[in-house]
């Protein structure tokens, strides 16, 4: 987990100040704003989702655009989102995409497998995350995440799942400095681990 917080990478950062404005415009039916929003969030969300899809699902042609479609769908129908800030928007998008993925997996799992008599290419249907940490641990994580305070949850999602740097987090979540963001994230991660530990008991 080598995060590069150096200033030269700041150009990667989304133009944070205008995301919520874009969102408002997209809600009002501005297609350009919608496109800009999707373009802004797509790469990171795609990378994030790649950890959440099992191999066989990622191999399916129709799931390639899953994230894009989910983003489109979510931005189009985001009336219920309370725009408390950029971090909240990330957490919201993450959940919406996660739901979409789950729905897609439920659907895809029931489709016939294009099998071969001697196909030795195996896949146990788990996502990379599940493969690495196991289904139960992932559930513990999800449940604990849901119990965190919204601000802590946003920090964890931004850092652990979306890979934002401390500086980016500071910008996203209105922390005065990268160091303040780092400390807040550190606290949130510890809190998350404690919550997971409670679930485990």
């Amino acid at each position, binding site marked *: 987990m*080598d995060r590069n917080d150096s200033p030269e990478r700041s150009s990667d950062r989304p133009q944070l100040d205008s995301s919520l404005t874009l969102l408002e415009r997209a809600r009002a039916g501005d297609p350009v704003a919608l496109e800009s929003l999707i373009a802004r969030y797509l790469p990171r969300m795609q990378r994030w989702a790649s950890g959440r899809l099992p191999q066989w699902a990622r191999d399916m042609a129709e799931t390639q655009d899953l994230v894009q479609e989910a983003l489109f769908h979510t931005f189009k129908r985001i009336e*219920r989102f309370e725009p408390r800030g950029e971090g909240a928007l990330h957490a919201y998008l993450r959940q919406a995409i996660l739901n979409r993925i789950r729905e897609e997996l439920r659907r895809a799992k029931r489709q016939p497998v294009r099998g071969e008599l001697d196909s030795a290419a195996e896949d146990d*249907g788990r996502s990379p995350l599940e493969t690495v940490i196991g289904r139960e641990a992932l559930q513990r*994580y999800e449940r604990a995440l849901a119990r965190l305070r919204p601000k802590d949850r946003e920090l964890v999602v931004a850092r652990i799942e979306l890979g934002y740097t401390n500086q980016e987090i500071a910008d996203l979540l209105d922390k005065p400095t990268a160091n303040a963001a780092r400390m807040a994230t550190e*606290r949130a991660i510890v809190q998350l681990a*404690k919550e997971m530990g409670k679930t485990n008991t």
Partner: protein
Amino acid sequence: MREDDRLLHDVAGAMMSGVRIDWASAEAKAGDESMRRIVRELKVIAAIADVHGSSEVSPYSPSVHAECGKVSAPEQQRDDPAAEYPGKQRTWGSLRLLEKLGEGSFGSVYRAWDTRLDREVALKLLHRPDTRGAHEAAVVEEGRMLARVRHPNVVMVHGADRSDGRVGVWTEFIQGQTLEQLLRERGVFAAGEATLIGLDVCRALSAVHQAGLLHRDIKAHNVMRETGGRIVLMDFGTGIHYEDSSAANGSLAGTPVYMAPEVLDGREATVQSDVYSVGVLLYHLVTGSYPVRGRSIQEIRTGHSGGERTPLRDTRPNLPEDFVQIVERALSPEPGRRYESAGEMEAALLSARDYVTVGAATRTGSVVRPSLEVPPPEFAARTRWRPRVLAIALLIVAAVGGSVWLTVRKSDPPVIAVLPFKNLSTEPDSDYFVDGLTDEVIRNLSVIDGLSVRSSASSFAFKNKNPTARDLSSQLHANLVLSASVLRAGARLRIDAQLVRAADDVPLWSARYDRELKDIFAIQDEISRSIVNELRLKLGRGQRRYTANVEAYDRYLKARVLQSRRGPATRQAIDLFDEVLAADPGFAPAYAARASAYGWYLVAQIPSVGGLPVPADQARAIVRRDAVEAMRLDPLLAEAHDATGWVHSLDLEWAEAEKSFRRAIQLNPSLTISSTDFVVAALLPEGKLDEALRVLNDALRADPLSSEVRRTMSITQISTRQYDAALANCRRAIALDPEIYAANTRCEQALIHKGEVAEAITMIEKFIADTPALKEGGGRGYGYLGYAYAISGRRAEAEAQAVRNEGLPHQQAIIYAGLGDKERAWVAIEQLAALNPQRALSWLTRPELDLLHGDPRVIALRRKFGVLQ
């Protein structure tokens, strides 16, 4: 900061800085077990961060074993047999190649036609010779030896030869799916089903070993379940040589995760190494995973030598102990500790099963009509991870008169052979009808989970031979035999069917069907369904698998997702169910789901408000008709019982409704919509709130991520005055599915009762402003706004809301209650009860209507609708 806290923050800080963490050391520094647990959770979080932060090629790349089993990329030349044999026009020897079925590193598999013997075969054709001349000779020799193995569970090898410069082995053609395909489609197997498969694989392996051969490549890809249910061991080690070629090109043939450690170390394959592979197969079937995994043979070897095998118990904790022990013994690293033979493992699997109780219904052969209430079907549900008893009580029928209990031995699990039905008719053309009927029954039985059925081919081998039940038992390894006679006289048809226990010829069930013969296919379909359904009811098990066309099934699944969202999405779900049933009128789950969707509309909404695609009385008729149809098609379908529950709820038959919903949950606990239906349609109207919470808690255990269960939980918890819990649940529901219906109203309702009325009003006003339909009506349809105004002293605004909600008595009741106007609240409830008694009864459990509690009119109302004796 406490020492322990400092440690946690140090670790978290190190994670964020990308510093390598010595987890063992961090854990050792933790003060106590609870702190060690938190350190371990930090490690989990670090792994999650790594996966998300990884590039395409991550150290945690998925499905590590997939790389081990990689098949060489097919080359163009190999794809088209015509290209391979330009002069021969898609033939090889005397075989005409019909269709390519698969491709492996060794060669290709084709469906082919044996032109000499006029039969369909499967042909495995090795790639063109390179340096493997000796290997090919061995393949031909081995194929010829295998051709001598005759066993129902071993694929029949017809021959092996070299022709046109290529080596091929041809076998019987099996229609079915590999266990790997089944595993991917349906999820992991129950231990009981895996045991049945294990028994057949062991029997097959014994036959192979007795012929002096080894299989050397047992894996889920190489075991097929034929359409009729027969388990067939396929694809011997022919052509597959495991090589650690990772150093050369990173591509490996075969599946090393199934290989015994000594074979991986270069020692000879033995009977015990085949036994090891059967252990891996069973492990894989019940977990979807493997005991030792790795990305290369070297990693797997290291895993074995480092003792990194994951015990079966750790992967899936709730398996029966006997089953776990058998698998673990087969997987012993030391060959000497494994079963000595496949036969010994088969015996262990047999003896691991529980005693089976067999009740003989009658010895007189008279018709036994099974009650619609069937014994608990341990094998019925497809739920994963549910502990199941390996063997079930077969045919527990209350004995009357001459009935006896026969429970003395460990009986085999049900494997049914269907004898070709006897044609007693003299009419010359009736044979085809009778054979067709036999086929239909076999086909219908073969889609029942938990039952093994011998194939048509096996059954018809006994046609006109009058075998005894014992003959069948020994030759087909079947322990139940279904036979029937068919008598046709003109347009009259009489069918007598009976089920016999093969071991001692004891009849277990019999039935007679008299029908007018109008449409032959319809009669075949109806009778085969009746026989199969009654057998399932008798056996008390057997979840039917549906094979609707893919498009229809896809729509069905989409509709189910919409249905679980409730609200207006229900209407979209109904439209999709209509389409599914138009495409596939035999698809029982869609009838049941459509009935439930209409049921929900009728009970949870006000019919007069609209939203229903048809008038309310028509909707009621659809609920009833669809529920009956679903039950007729599949009486063990959980969804059909759920639909029946709605019918009873609409008829205010509470006890019957409860029974139906409980049965639905029992049949498939993972179908949590049955639980929420149960609560909405019966338990809330009945005022059984504690029971509702129990049901929902169980549902939550079965599906912790169900937003609909959370939403229903929050409704119930508001009625039990657990507002904090209700708030948490409705928030969770929204987090899980931002589009779920009306969970926000529950949050606002909970906030109001927690005293945070101002915040609730802000939320409601914003929601109304953001929702065009609500905004247009000035909040009509949102009674809680009026209620919140009323209790915060804004009475004029509350009154205005009451006016806006004219025609919506449920909303008005809430507002009037907020205003403290008991009389007007009661009148609204009375109006609501006239439109929708179920909803009126549920409404009365809400805290807003506390002012009506104890009112004799309410008591009389509850009594009138049968929820108060």
